[in-house]
């Protein structure tokens, strides 16, 4: 059972605290992505699970056993590093078999396991090569092979795709997902790329400045971000935000520039409060009536078109399916269904729930 429990874990370097009490419970077989901007502590957390970094306070348990003082080699984990960390003087076969050799496994059995892993990853023809004779994608697969042969309780991935080119990244991403579906091993995956996290993970842990902002399945995070940070981080192109103060009956906002903006029909803000309105680009519709905005730039990608427009002095991104006749300089009217309008408290950043009957 590859469960991982992270209980109120803290990390400081001297008096400088970088992680402020992180708790996550990962059940057996789950694929969890740790995601956040650089410096948010996601890699540090992964390295603490691996045992490469000391835990200042709190507990990490793998399979129910607290591993705070257990050496990395005794944690039954396998890790894939960002730069692959292959042993440069060993062949692919030796790289993959090294951990098993250290365990004292008989040669025939090592060879058998290496062959199985090589077959899964399509590495059979490369077994005699040294890492320097491999392409980036091949090295990446060898690094995964080295993890697979060990049949560990938990897989740890530290931004494994960030050194691959865009096309290869998409391909390996899907291979990784297949691999997890096939092996079913508990996986903790660190990435700064929210698309990677969304596509791969069963659950996402969004981190920021050494704290957990939200934990949940990808689409929950997308549909109901708990705060402004998650709302801005998850989704591409990112959510549009409009700051203002709700009017007395909560149907409109007073903006900082003195003008007023009505909320989309049906949406309601708590009266008098400073709120931030969030709408995803794909939920803004070009309509007959609604907010009047001036089109700045049209970015077609074929299947959809992104429109960058300006509502007063507020920049807005609109994503529409298919193509459009709209031209830069045109004035368009924008509307959004009330159920897709997110409201956040501007001061605390927290989501304001249940303002919309249709939600």
């Amino acid at each position, binding site marked *: 059972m590859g469960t991982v429990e992270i209980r109120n874990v803290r990390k400081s370097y001297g008096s400088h605290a970088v992680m402020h009490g992180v708790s996550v419970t990962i059940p057996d077989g789950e694929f969890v992505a740790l995601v956040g901007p650089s410096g948010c502590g996601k890699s540090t957390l992964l390295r603490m699970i691996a*045992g*490469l970094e000391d835990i200042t306070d709190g507990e990490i348990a793998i399979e129910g056993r607290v591993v705070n003082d257990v*050496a*990395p*080699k005794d*944690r039954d984990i396998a890790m894939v*590093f960002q730069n692959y960390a292959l*042993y440069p003087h060993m062949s692919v076969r030796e790289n993959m078999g090294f951990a098993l050799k250290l*365990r004292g496994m008989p040669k025939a059995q090592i060879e058998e396991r290496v062959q199985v892993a090589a077959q899964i990853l399509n590495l059979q023809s490369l077994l005699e090569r040294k890492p320097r004779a491999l392409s980036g994608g091949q090295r990446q697969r060898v690094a995964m092979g080295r993890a697979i042969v060990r049949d560990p309780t938990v897989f740890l991935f530290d931004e494994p795709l960030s050194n691959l080119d865009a096309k290869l990244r998409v391909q390996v991403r899907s291979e990784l997902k297949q691999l997890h579906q096939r092996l079913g091993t508990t996986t903790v995956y660190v990435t700064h790329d929210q698309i990677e996290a969304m596509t791969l993970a069963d659950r996402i842990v969004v981190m920021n400045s050494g704290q957990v902002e939200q934990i949940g399945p990808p689409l929950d995070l997308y549909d109901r971000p708990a705060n402004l940070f998650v709302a801005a981080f998850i989704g591409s192109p990112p959510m549009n935000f409009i700051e203002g103060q709700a009017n007395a009956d909560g149907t409109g906002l007073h903006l900082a520039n003195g003008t007023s903006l009505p909320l989309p029909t049906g949406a309601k803000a708590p009266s008098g409060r400073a709120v931030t309105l969030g709408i995803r680009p794909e939920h803004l519709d070009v309509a007959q009536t609604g907010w009047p905005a001036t089109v700045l730039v049209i970015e077609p990608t074929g299947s959809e078109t992104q429109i960058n427009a300006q509502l007063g002095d507020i920049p807005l991104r609109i994503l529409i399916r298919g193509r459009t006749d709209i031209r830069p300089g045109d004035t368009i009217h924008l509307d959004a269904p009330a159920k897709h309008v997110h409201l956040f408290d501007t001061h605390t950043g927290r989501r304001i729930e249940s303002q919309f009957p249709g939600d």
Partner: protein
Amino acid sequence: MSPATILLLVVLAYPIFYTLRISFAELNLGTFEADTWVGWDNYLAVVENDRFWNSLKVTGTYLILALPLQMVLGFGIAFLINANWKGRGVVRALFIIPMVVAPVVAGGVWRMLLDPLWGLVNYLLGFFGLEPLDWLGNPSLAMMTLVIIDTWRWTPFVTLIATAALLSLPRDVFEAAQIDGANWWRIFWSITLPLLLPIIAATFIVRWLGAVKMFDIALAATNGGPGQATNVINLFIYEEAFRSLKFAESAAMAMIILVLTMVLTGIFLVGSRKLEERQ
């Protein structure tokens, strides 16, 4: 391009060709010109000279003792001071001192330290109830003395290179080995050492080229003595040329040593390239 070539020709090629020429001739000590062509006579005289062979043997002994010692100590110390600890920078700076002391001064200082009667080393040995040793007068001890001084002087150089090499090794490879289950010794033996091998080989070649030229410390500390015990080849050639004024024979010896050094260096270079290609 051409000024550099001319400079090289003047300072490098000309002395070598001059040496080559007088090694096949009789040198007129009045004009310093090679007068009479004598063929291989000078070389024959060298080969038949027991003292030449003795000097080669002395040099060989010195190399075999000093080089491995310096390499092992240099890399060993680097390995120990590579760990992060306070004052590491100061220790590193102190390590460079032996290298910047002029070799003749170093030889002289060590000569004083090792003086049989009032030297500090024998004085300290006395605390442990040990008899004073004749560091410079006993033939086998004199060779040890030479090795000790040379090691004192050059180990820091090896340590410096080794430290830089250790710091340049990729950290994640060691972390991967840690996770794969390797203990300290296994990481050293299966990861660190193989990764360092090309640099160890290169450092060895640099040290070898320096050690073959051993002259100054021997001159200052033992002057080749006692007897011929520490008369390394360069010291011997120097004495033959400038004390005994046998320039032609010395030139022949110099040529023999040049060729020998080039051949051995060539072999070492090929070996180190092989090591690099393995990775």
